[in-house]
C-alpha cells in the first residue's frame, strides 16, 4: 500500500495493487465471432490472443472488431487476421505511474502483466481499474473535504464535471449509416457517439459494443445507426460533482457519461472512467496540486 501524497495520489503504488487477475483470452484458432462474444460476455474492451504454448501473441480490441465489420470480414475469420501484436507487458511490481506512462506512450488502454514466465499474462491493467484506487485514497485522505463534514462548502469545493470532462461532443445523425458511424469513431478515436435527429436533439447513442453486436447478428453495415442505438443517453448536468458522476457510471454499469448544460437534449461534453484515471487525482480539491502538475 502506498502513501497518500498530495503531489500524486498514486505515488508508491504498484501495478499489482490495481490489476485484475482474470485475463480473458482466446487461442489463435478462435474466430472473430468468438472474440465478439468474449467481449460482450466478459464486458471487456479487448481480449488477449495466446499461441499454443500459452504465450500472448496479440490483442483484439473492440476497435479491431469494429474494423472487421467495416471491412466486411466473414465472422468465421480467425482472430489473428485483425489482432494487434505483440501485447505490451509490464511487471506486477512496476509502479503504477510508470505503467500509466507506458500506456500513454504506446497510446494503448491496457497493459498485460507478465507472470513468472515470459509473455504469459497473470493479470491485466486498464484505466478504469485505477479509479477504484483513487476512491480508496479519497476515503482515507485526511484532507477529504466530505469527511471533514464541511456541508455545503465542501460540496461546492469538489470537482464538477465541467472541469474534468472533455468539452465538445462529436455526433452523428440518426439516419447516418453504421459505415459512417464507424468511420467517425475510428477517425476520432471515440468509443461511442450520440445520435441527433433532424432538429439536432440527441435521441440515442451508438457504442463500439452496439456495433460489434450488430456485426455478430449479421446486420448490414449500410443500415441506419438508429436501428442499433441505445436510448435514452446516459447523461449528467455539467454542474454535478465528479463523485456523483462516478456513482452514476457504476450504477448504470457504463464507463462513459455524456454531459449537458441545463438541457439534457443538448450535450456539451463527455466524461469517461478512463478520463478519471488519467487525472490521477481524487474527487475533491484536496488533490488539486497533483492535478495541476499532471495537467
Amino acid at each position: 500500500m502506498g502513501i497518500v501524497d498530495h503531489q500524486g495520489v498514486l505515488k508508491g503504488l504498484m501495478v499489482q495493487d490495481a490489476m485484475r487477475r482474470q485475463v480473458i483470452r482466446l487461442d489463435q484458432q478462435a474466430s472473430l465471432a468468438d472474440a465478439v462474444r468474449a467481449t460482450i460476455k466478459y464486458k471487456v474492451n479487448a481480449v488477449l490472443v495466446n499461441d499454443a504454448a500459452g504465450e500472448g501473441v496479440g490483442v483484439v480490441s473492440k476497435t479491431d472488431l469494429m474494423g472487421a465489420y467495416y471491412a466486411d470480414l466473414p465472422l468465421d475469420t480467425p482472430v489473428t487476421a485483425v489482432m494487434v501484436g505483440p501485447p505490451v507487458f509490464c511487471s506486477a511490481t512496476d509502479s503504477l505511474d510508470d505503467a500509466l506512462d507506458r500506456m500513454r506512450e504506446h497510446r494503448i488502454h491496457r497493459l498485460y502483466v507478465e507472470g513468472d514466465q515470459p509473455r504469459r499474462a497473470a493479470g491485466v491493467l486498464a484505466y478504469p481499474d485505477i479509479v477504484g484506487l483513487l476512491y480508496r485514497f479519497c476515503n482515507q485522505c485526511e484532507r477529504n473535504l466530505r469527511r471533514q463534514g464541511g456541508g455545503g462548502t465542501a460540496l461546492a469545493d469538489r470537482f464538477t464535471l465541467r472541469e474534468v470532462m472533455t468539452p465538445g461532443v462529436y455526433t452523428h445523425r440518426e439516419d447516418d449509416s453504421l459505415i459512417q458511424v464507424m468511420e467517425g469513431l475510428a477517425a476520432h478515436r471515440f468509443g461511442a457517439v450520440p445520435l441527433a435527429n433532424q432538429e439536432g436533439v440527441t435521441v440515442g447513442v451508438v457504442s463500439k459494443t452496439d456495433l460489434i453486436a450488430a456485426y455478430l447478428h449479421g446486420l448490414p453495415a449500410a443500415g441506419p445507426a438508429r436501428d442499433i442505438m441505445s436510448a435514452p443517453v446516459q447523461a449528467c448536468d455539467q454542474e454535478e460533482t465528479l463523485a456523483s458522476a462516478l456513482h452514476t457510471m457504476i450504477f448504470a454499469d457504463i464507463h462513459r457519461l455524456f454531459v449537458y448544460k441545463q438541457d439534457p437534449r443538448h450535450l456539451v461534453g463527455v466524461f469517461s472512467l478512463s478520463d478519471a484515471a488519467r487525472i490521477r487525482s481524487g474527487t475533491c480539491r484536496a488533490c488539486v496540486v497533483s492535478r495541476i502538475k499532471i495537467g
Partner: protein
Amino acid sequence: MPTVAREVMETSFLSLSPQATIAEAGEVFRRAADTAGRTVFGLMVIDEAGKPVGMLSMYDIFLLIRPKHIHIWGEMEDLDVAGIIDRACAKAKQVRVSDVMTTDLITISPETHLLHVIDIMIKRHVRRLPVIEDGRVVGLVYMSRVFRRLLERLA
C-alpha cells in the same frame, strides 16, 4: 451397470434458440427445472436446422449480470446500490443467447465409454455433455446421473 453414454443420457430435455433473448432463456430454465424436478444449470442451444451451436450455463448468465466495475465497489462505501440488481437484470434481459453462449462445445457419441465421460468431466471441468449422433443432439449426460449410477456399484 451401464458402460456407455447411451445408457445414462437424458433423452428428453428443453433447449434454446440462438436468437432467443436472455429473458426468454430464463423462462426456459424455469420450465426445465419444473419438468426435471431439480435445478437446471445449463441448456443446449440448437439452431433451426437442429444443429447444436452452443451451451448456455448459469455461469454465462452470472457473467452477464456481474457489473463491469464491481472491483471498484469495495472502495465506494457511500455508493447507494438500491435497485442495482433490477437494473443489471433489465440490461441483461435484452441480450441474445447467441451473444453469450459458450460455443466451444465438448461432445461425445452415444458409444463413448463412461470412464471416458468421467475423464472428460474431470479434465474439462464440465458437468454435462451433449451426445451427438449424425450431427444432432440425441441426449445429455449429466455428471450427477453418472455419479448416481456409479454409487450403485460402489455400494
